[in-house]
């Protein structure tokens, strides 16, 4: 005997997408469609234990849900003579499910909401299951889904048969990658996300059979998934593709991937990014050993992919492929362009790949430094250990020359604490980017200039000059005058004079206007002004706290209104009363209104939002 409630759950997951999709055509609101479908589920839970599970449970649920939907429409539109044919609507079709997918992945929703809603209404997962997979609380997911349904209802997009295929593909691949990037044993639950994404992809391939990119995505996911058993070693360390035991690749999934790829080729049109990535995956899967890999073809595919998706990661992968196809030097040449990509500044794979290529060129000492640098950037402990082990196996003759990392540490030690902290921010970043174990003598001005340009591409001249000062000071200390010339200070342009009162201020709330006016007229510090209490003020003398803060007619005109009838407590109050969790200090609480003192952060936010300027910039204008 089987547990009926478990059966209901299983049926629900298999059928919910079709039921919700069919209802969506009737009620045009995802949230309502799902509620009505849930009603049918409750009916099943009540009736199936007594009457047995029906032969076609999906159709049974659909009938009940449709009846509820018709009741609902009748109630909400009593004045209309309801057409009896409503009840004889056709069975939900494939198009309905596709439409539901487009709706749940609609670009009006933020990405997280698209993912959560898709897993809810298409995959039929419960909020608890989604929450577990994404390592957040169930409440967060429930709120995310509710907000997404509201947004869809408000935006009125529910019934648009729009063609936002790219967004759907993106969501599916995102779900897949979320599960795929989790490699450790504790994250086994997340592996389920890969299976959900595969299911969604396979479903989509049936719904939109003429779209090459859909089949490309399915092929890509099937082949990536086929390697899941071979991707990690016994200690959880990642195993790079060309070192994996190909005997552990799942041939069933590989063949399914190949079949999907054939369908992608049959669908006409120039190959898109998913088809190209799948083609690369196919090349790897076709090679019986790592040495058999057709790197020439793979590097050509990466070149085509780079035309469509010129991201640094694609370019990095292309450099790897070219390194195998045309030799390590060619790969290294491509990598040199990537040094200046800010996105890769902290990406551990860049130095790791460089280390590999240098090793194949016989430049062992440099290779070891790059691998160590990669290890210092790796976020995953298994990955870090793996890189360090590789670096340790390299036989490098002992180098007695001073290293960059220790030199920076020695230099900072020789300074006072405040200077050391300020300079340390600059020099640690430089050392990390160049590699802490790099011999100081090998750090060239050109490399330093590159690091500066990559790390601080768009800072204000003042900040830039602080970094330059730190570097020059270090260069002098380390007796490497070349380095001091690597970067030069930038001229600081005086800010243009600001208008005294902007038009937008006039429309602002009284509290803000008083605060800004007082700051302008008194030139007092923002903290001092926000800490004023009503009893500190001497309105007749236009001053406060024994005349250390004084103001003029503008503030004097507004102040009485702000004070109202209050006689003591903070002058500037926040909008809301504090919650029970975080009671403020007594001095920050107004005994008459129960509100707390306006915080610096909130005041700053309000000012920036209204005027685009900081509170500090209002002083003394």
């Amino acid at each position: 005997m089987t547990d009926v409630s478990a059966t209901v759950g299983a049926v629900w997951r298999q059928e919910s997408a079709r039921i919700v999709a069919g209802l969506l055509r009737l009620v045009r609101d995802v949230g309502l469609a799902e509620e009505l479908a849930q009603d049918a589920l409750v009916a099943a839970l009540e009736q199936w234990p007594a009457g047995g599970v029906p032969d076609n449970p999906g159709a049974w649920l659909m009938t009940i849900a449709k009846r509820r939907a018709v009741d609902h429409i009748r109630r909400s539109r009593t004045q209309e003579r309801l057409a009896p044919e409503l009840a004889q609507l056709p069975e939900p079709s494939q198009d309905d499910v596709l439409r539901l997918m487009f709706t749940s992945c609609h670009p009006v929703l933020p990405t997280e909401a698209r993912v959560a809603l898709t897993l809810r209404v298409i995959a039929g997962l419960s909020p608890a299951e989604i929450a577990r997979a994404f390592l957040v609380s169930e409440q967060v997911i429930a709120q995310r889904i509710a907000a997404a349904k509201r947004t869809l209802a408000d935006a009125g997009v529910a019934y648009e048969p729009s063609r936002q295929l790219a967004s759907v593909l993106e969501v599916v691949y995102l779900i897949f990658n979320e599960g795929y990037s989790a490699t450790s044993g504790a994250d086994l639950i997340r592996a389920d996300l890969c299976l959900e994404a595969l299911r969604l992809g396979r479903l989509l391939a049936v719904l939109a059979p003429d779209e090459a990119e859909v089949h490309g995505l399915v092929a890509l996911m099937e082949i990536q998934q086929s390697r899941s058993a071979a991707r990690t070693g016994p200690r959880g360390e990642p195993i790079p593709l060309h070192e994996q035991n190909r005997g552990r690749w799942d041939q069933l999934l590989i063949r399914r991937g190949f079949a999907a790829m054939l369908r992608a080729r049959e669908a006409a049109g120039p190959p898109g990014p998913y088809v190209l990535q799948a083609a690369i995956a196919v090349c790897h899967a076709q090679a019986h050993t790592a040495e058999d890999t057709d790197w020439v073809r793979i590097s050509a595919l990466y070149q085509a992919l780079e035309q469509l998706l010129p991201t640094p990661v694609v370019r990095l992968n292309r450099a790897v492929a070219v390194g195998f196809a045309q030799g390590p030097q060619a790969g290294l040449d491509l990598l040199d362009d990537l040094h200046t990509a800010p996105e890769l500044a902290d990406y551990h794979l860049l130095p790791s790949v460089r280390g590999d290529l240098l090793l194949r060129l016989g430049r062992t000492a440099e290779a070891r430094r790059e691998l160590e640098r990669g290890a210092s950037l790796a976020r995953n402990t298994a990955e870090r250990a793996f890189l360090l082990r590789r670096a340790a196996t390299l036989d490098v003759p002992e180098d007695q020359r001073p290293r960059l990392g220790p030199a920076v540490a020695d230099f900072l030690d020789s300074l006072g604490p405040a200077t050391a902290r300020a300079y340390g921010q600059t020099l640690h970043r430089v050392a990390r980017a160049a590699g802490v174990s790099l011999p100081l003598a090998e750090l060239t001005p050109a490399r330093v200039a590159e690091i500066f340009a990559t790390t601080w591409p768009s800072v204000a001249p003042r900040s830039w000059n602080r970094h330059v000062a730190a570097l020059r000071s270090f260069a002098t200390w380390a007796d490497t005058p070349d380095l001091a010339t690597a970067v030069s200070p930038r001229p600081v342009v005086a800010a243009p004079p600001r208008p005294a009162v902007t038009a937008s201020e006039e429309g602002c709330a009284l509290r803000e206007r008083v605060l800004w006016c007082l700051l302008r007229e008194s030139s007092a510090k923002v903290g001092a002004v926000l800490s004023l209490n009503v009893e500190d003020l001497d309105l007749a003398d236009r001053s406060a706290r024994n005349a250390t803060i004084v103001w003029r007619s503008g503030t004097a005109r507004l102040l009485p209104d702000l004070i109202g009838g209050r006689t003591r407590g903070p002058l500037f109050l926040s909008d809301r009363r504090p919650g029970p969790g975080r009671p403020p200090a007594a001095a920050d609480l107004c005994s008459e209104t129960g509100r707390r003192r306006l915080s610096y952060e909130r005041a700053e936010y309000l000012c920036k939002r209204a005027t685009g300027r900081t509170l500090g910039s209002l002083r003394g204008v």
Partner: protein
Amino acid sequence: MRYLMMQKAGGAEPDAQLYADMAAFVEELTASGVLLATGGLDPVGFKMTSAGDEITVTDGPFTEAKEAIGGFALVEVRTKEEALELCRRFRKIVGDGESVIHQVYGP
């Protein structure tokens, strides 16, 4: 998780309706990404036994016809209940009989 469902031979005599229902069922499972592989088995088969260095090959059949495995389906589902539900629907189509289901260990 993957389950291997094996159908013992026998059941209702296949007619046109059964073929159509089965085709629709297989199509639906394939579309939803559940069905990974399926196939029918020759009920006869042959057997190989080893004892030390000695290998013996014996031609089938070995069991009564209705005890032999007639076909299999490899499905990928989230829970055991889903596998059960799929099998229940399958049995509704092919008629009374017996299926044996094993979970396939894997990644």
